[in-house]
């Protein structure tokens, strides 16, 4: 098993390196002078020359990339010329909000999706209702959900704040509930449908029939044989879902005025703050790749048939 884990780790590092080349290279694919881009569009020739020197822009591409990569690995994500501050400082205050929001939404998705899906698979009548509800839920984009939730729960009922993140753990939870729900709706519906299908499929398996024939109680059959095996497809897809949340997060942060990575990405893009865009992109891609890697390892834990590897 550890051999397979090692292989996955190597391919994860390779993927990250390739992604970083792409992200760094985008700077030179964009029209115009990279120094102008880094400066945010308005700069005197003296400033541009300084940037060219500090960013090694006169050197060959891979030498420049190397300088940049070494800096990134040392935790230096470059300088924002718009804010005139290191990008790391700008990110520090925002990462927490985004992580909180994404984990909150992920918890809602996994708990809600698995419970609804299981219920739908085990009970015929509940199944019919859940199919309809999740089909509708699947079609609700997070920006629509965000507006609807704000209208109903913040403006009309006044149960939740309209925007902001609050301070302190409980207040944060309260402030981020609507955003997390908005982010979670369609993914929960998706996870519910997937869980329902996976559980239905496992219920029809021959080994479940064996367990029944041996007089194993229904509860044990469901937990040990149906859910246990259905966990394999469910976690694989849940992992991808969580990775996908990072993209959906951009929209929701904008809608709820949350000061996180998503809204920072939008602002930086509008202000042509290239170093910040680069840094946020790098973080989003790295998170995506790492989450996928973790899901891969987790499925090795769940499915012994995969552990043998290709050997």
């Amino acid at each position, binding site marked *: 098993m550890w051999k397979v884990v090692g292989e996955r780790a190597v391919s994860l590092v390779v993927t990250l390196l390739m992604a970083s080349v792409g992200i760094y290279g985008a700077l030179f694919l964009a029209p115009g002078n990279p120094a102008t881009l880094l400066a945010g569009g308005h700069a005197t020739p003296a400033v541009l020359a300084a940037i060219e020197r500090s960013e090694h822009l006169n050197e060959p591409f891979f030498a420049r990339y190397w300088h940049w990569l070494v800096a990134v690995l040392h935790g230096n994500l470059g300088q924002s010329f718009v804010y005139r501050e290191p990008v790391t400082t700008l990110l520090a205050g925002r990462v927490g909000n985004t992580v909180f929001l994404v984990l909150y939404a992920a918890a809602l998705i996994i708990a809600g999706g698995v419970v609804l899906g299981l219920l739908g698979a085990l009970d015929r009548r509940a199944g019919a209702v859940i199919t309809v509800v999740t089909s509708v839920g699947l079609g609700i984009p997070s920006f629509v959900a965000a507006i609807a939730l704000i209208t109903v729960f913040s403006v009309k009922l006044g149960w939740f704040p309209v925007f902001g993140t609050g301070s302190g753990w409980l207040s944060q939870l309260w402030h981020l509930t609507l955003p997390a729900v908005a982010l979670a709706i369609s993914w929960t519906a998706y996870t519910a449908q997937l869980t329902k299908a996976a559980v239905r499929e496992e219920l029809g*398996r*021959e*080994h479940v*029939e*064996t*367990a*029944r*024939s*041996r*007089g*194993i*109680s229904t509860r*044990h059959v469901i937990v*040990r*044989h149906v859910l*246990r*095996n259905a966990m*394999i497809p469910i976690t694989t897809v849940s992992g991808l879902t969580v990775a996908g949340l990072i993209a959906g997060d951009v929209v929701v942060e904008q809608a709820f005025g949350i000061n996180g990575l998503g809204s920072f990405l939008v602002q930086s893009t509008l202000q042509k703050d290239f170093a910040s865009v680069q840094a946020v992109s790098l973080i989003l891609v790295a998170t995506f790749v790492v989450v996928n890697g973790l899901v891969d390892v987790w499925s090795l834990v*769940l*499915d*012994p*048939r995969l552990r*043998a590897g290709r050997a």
Partner: protein
Amino acid sequence: MSVLEIDHLAVDLPVEGVLRRVLHDVTLPIAPGEAVGLVGESGAGKSMVSRAVIRLLPEGAAVHGDIRYAGDSVLAMGRPALRHFRTHDVAMIFQDPRAHINPVRTVGDFLVEALVERGERRESATTTVTALLASVGVSDPERRFRQFPHELSGGLLQRVMIAAALAVSPTLLLADEPTTALDVTTQSDVMVILDARRRERGLAMLFVTHDLELAAAVCDRIAVLYAGLLIEDVPTGDLRRDLRHPYTAGLLASRPDPVSPRRRLAAIPGRPLSAFEIGPGCPFAPRCPFAVARCLSERPELRDLDTGRVACHRAEELRGQLLSIATPGAASA
């Protein structure tokens, strides 16, 4: 008294929303310690019989008649009684161990599960099962316990299934084509082990197979199923000496001959009918070389004849003639 009595069992299964008959009428008693081979072509309904006994028919199936275990109706059992029946009295050995054992749990988990479920401690269950593994010819039980099903060969896995079935000390074994999914060389090994352990423990067995020869080798009685109807029930010893039903004779004639293997294999003309297709008469009549008008219009009852039972209008008059067609080589001559 019989340990199991299958009494005028009929089963309808839902096919695209409509109930369709898959078993017409099966009456079959099994005495304690007796092995009964239930033989028939694919689609004859033989698996339905064994599944009905352990109440594993698909959802929506309609069951008529009765099945009694030690006098108690299995069909009328409530949840606790059914669980007790399944955890103590009966055990089923399925056809394909690879599909019928959970692939993500260890072999050890599978083996002790039923014992733990009925309240035994895992340690004592492990001791019981380890001894059983040795008795079914599985070496290195400690290592097997930790392994996963995909790490074992099909033959080994089927022995594990047999050990799991024996673990609960049942009085009745249901074996549904237990060697069909195995390759030919391991089939006989597994069968020998199953037969030996069953005899040793005096278990009754319902052995479902399409292989008449195999059934004859390990069973005391052979019951022949055709299109959902039991058409013959005969002691194994009489099977070759005294043939009573043309279909059984045809089955015996169609087996390959070990003495002159180049002989063209005899076949029963026509195709086997499904249970829902049969007309008012004998289900085998359209393919039967001895059929007369009555056979097509009137369904023969299963009636006692000497040592067994047979459902054929002409059983008595055909008795002498059938033996000649069932002897390999004779039919083509």
